[in-house]
């Protein structure tokens, strides 16, 4: 991104995106004309208070929701207007998600959770297993591959979620308040690990957060307020 103009290095390009929800008889304007670009390899945070529209924007970039107005281009492909099925394929192959909570499937072990996305992608069993084991070791879960979520701490569960998000080699990882349910030490460890992944593997990360620690780690902070970008600062 250079001075708000799109370049070929941009992985995400959001153009004048608005999102209005109907709540009872009221129209709630979650986003009111947001434009921004995210370059490949960025470690960026969408910051702002509750209700500022950061999660809505993250959902729109991830193809989990559709904008009321505007255009979103992900990895050189316009995603607004795609069918649910095409959006699902796009999410499967291009996007990794880390949510605030309820990130992993309770009946699967850590390794199976990581393998599951690759299973949907049609990766062979052998390759799935090898890649899942390697990535779990990378996120610091050696010896815990076969543990079920109930046997893992909150921080370890988030590490499994990060491992699952990056194992399928996505273009971008979207993390919605990933440290919100973690204590500060665990949260810091998780951010450290994601920062390393970003630098070592070049994976693009976009966070939505109001956690100062996440903002400290982010190398670009986009502030949102009342559904608009009010500040966009690169450190």
């Amino acid at each position, binding site marked *: 991104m250079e001075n708000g103009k799109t370049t070929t290095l941009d992985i995400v390009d959001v153009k004048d995106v608005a999102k209005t929800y109907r709540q009872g008889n009221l129209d709630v304007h979650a986003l009111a004309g947001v434009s921004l670009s995210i370059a490949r390899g960025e470690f960026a945070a969408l910051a702002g208070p509750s209700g500022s529209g950061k999660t809505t924007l993250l959902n729109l970039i991830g193809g*989990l929701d559709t904008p009321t107005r505007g255009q979103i281009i992900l990895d050189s492909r316009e995603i607004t207007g795609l069918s649910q099925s095409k959006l699902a*394929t796009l999410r499967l192959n291009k996007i990794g998600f880390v949510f605030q909570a*309820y990130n992993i499937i309770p*009946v*699967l072990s850590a390794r199976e959770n990581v393998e599951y996305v690759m299973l949907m992608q049609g990766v062979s069993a052998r390759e799935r297993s090898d890649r899942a084991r390697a990535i779990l070791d990378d996120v610091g879960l050696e010896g815990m591959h076969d543990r079920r979520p109930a046997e893992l701490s909150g921080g370890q569960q988030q590490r499994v979620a990060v491992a699952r998000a990056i194992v399928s080699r996505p273009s971008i990882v979207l993390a919605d308040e990933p440290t919100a349910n973690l204590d500060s030490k665990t949260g810091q460890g998780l951010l450290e690990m994601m920062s390393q992944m970003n630098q070592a593997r070049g994976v693009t990360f976009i966070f939505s957060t109001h956690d100062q620690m996440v903002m400290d780690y982010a190398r670009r902070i986009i502030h949102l307020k009342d559904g608009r970008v009010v500040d966009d600062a690169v450190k």
Partner: protein
Amino acid sequence: MHLHISWRNVWRNPKRTGIILTAIIIGAWTMLVFGGLSRGMMASTLSNALNTLTGHIQVQSPAYRDDPVIENQIDNPAELGKLLDTTLPGDARWAFRIQVGGVASNARNAEGITIVGIDPDREPGLSFYGDSLAQGRHLTPDDGHGIVVGQALVESFETRLGRKLVLMTQDADRETASRAFKIRGIFRADMEATEKQYVFITLDAARKLLGVETAVTGACIKLSRGSSRNPVDLADLDRTVRALSEKLSPGLAVLSWEQLLPLLKGYLAMFDSFMLLWYLVVFLAMAFGLVNTMLMAVLERTREFGLLKALGMKPVWIIRNVLAECVILLAIGLAAGNLLGIGTVLAFGSGIDMSFMAQGSEFFGMGHLVVPFLTARDILAVNAVIMLLGLLVCLYPAVKAGRITPVEAMART
């Protein structure tokens, strides 16, 4: 791996899974036991009807069925006999009979009966005559004045073994003919009406009574049932009827039991429909539990389905996974239900004594002892109804799961 995950999902809530499995098991068990009992009752009714002189096939003069008198006779039975010997399957039995209406009388009573002239050597095994003797002895071929009658008739005529009974009928010249016979044997049948209806004399004695030389009124044929316990299950029946029809002279009619007893055929077909109806009623009760349980299982995993969709799972895959859980539940339930149901039917293999409702069972032409049994088709029908309709009703929660959107799901706390 998908099946593996579905298996684990099924056992997430063992109590709930246990409840729905119990419902499926009880449903399958009930269907099979009721089906087995119904099949046994049908078999008993049909066996009774076939044993009561109908047999599987009869060859007779075309006019005899509407007017069963000696004038509608088969003139040259020897030729027919040769044809039957060469055409029928090796394990089939057959015999000639003269069967006409008449009146039996003694000093105490007089009642309308059916006189049955039989070949004493060939008749046993063909009708109830052979294995129903309660007192006295069977007829011998040279017994020109012997008669075997039913217990109910003996009681009604206040007579006993060795006493005389006069038979009166219309002979071949349309004259009234009568002859006295001595009671040699008394038979017991499943139905009192049968005991009152039929009296047996030898074929020669019947010919003398009716004033004919060699004539008979028909030939009765019984085919082997092989290993099947279902009397309806006769692969040879249609083939034999066709073969006989082709070879017989046009002056003779070949009638299967289905043509001879159309009412019974209709009744049995109706019974089959009732069985299917019963399966559907039981399934309906079971379906409510199944849908409810699957709906609960889906709704409590809303966030999980939302997560899976966010990760890129297509709605159709989610539907497939929920249906796979249904298949697992149904398969386990059916396996246990089949074991229990078939086991129960086998446990009653020696028969259920229905004499406590003798009058009711007689009304339906059923014997006192009903042996429940199941055909492969019955078992298949029960399993198909539960599995296919089960999957059909599971489609509702499955589609509901497929429609969950990630944003809605994640918004749930």
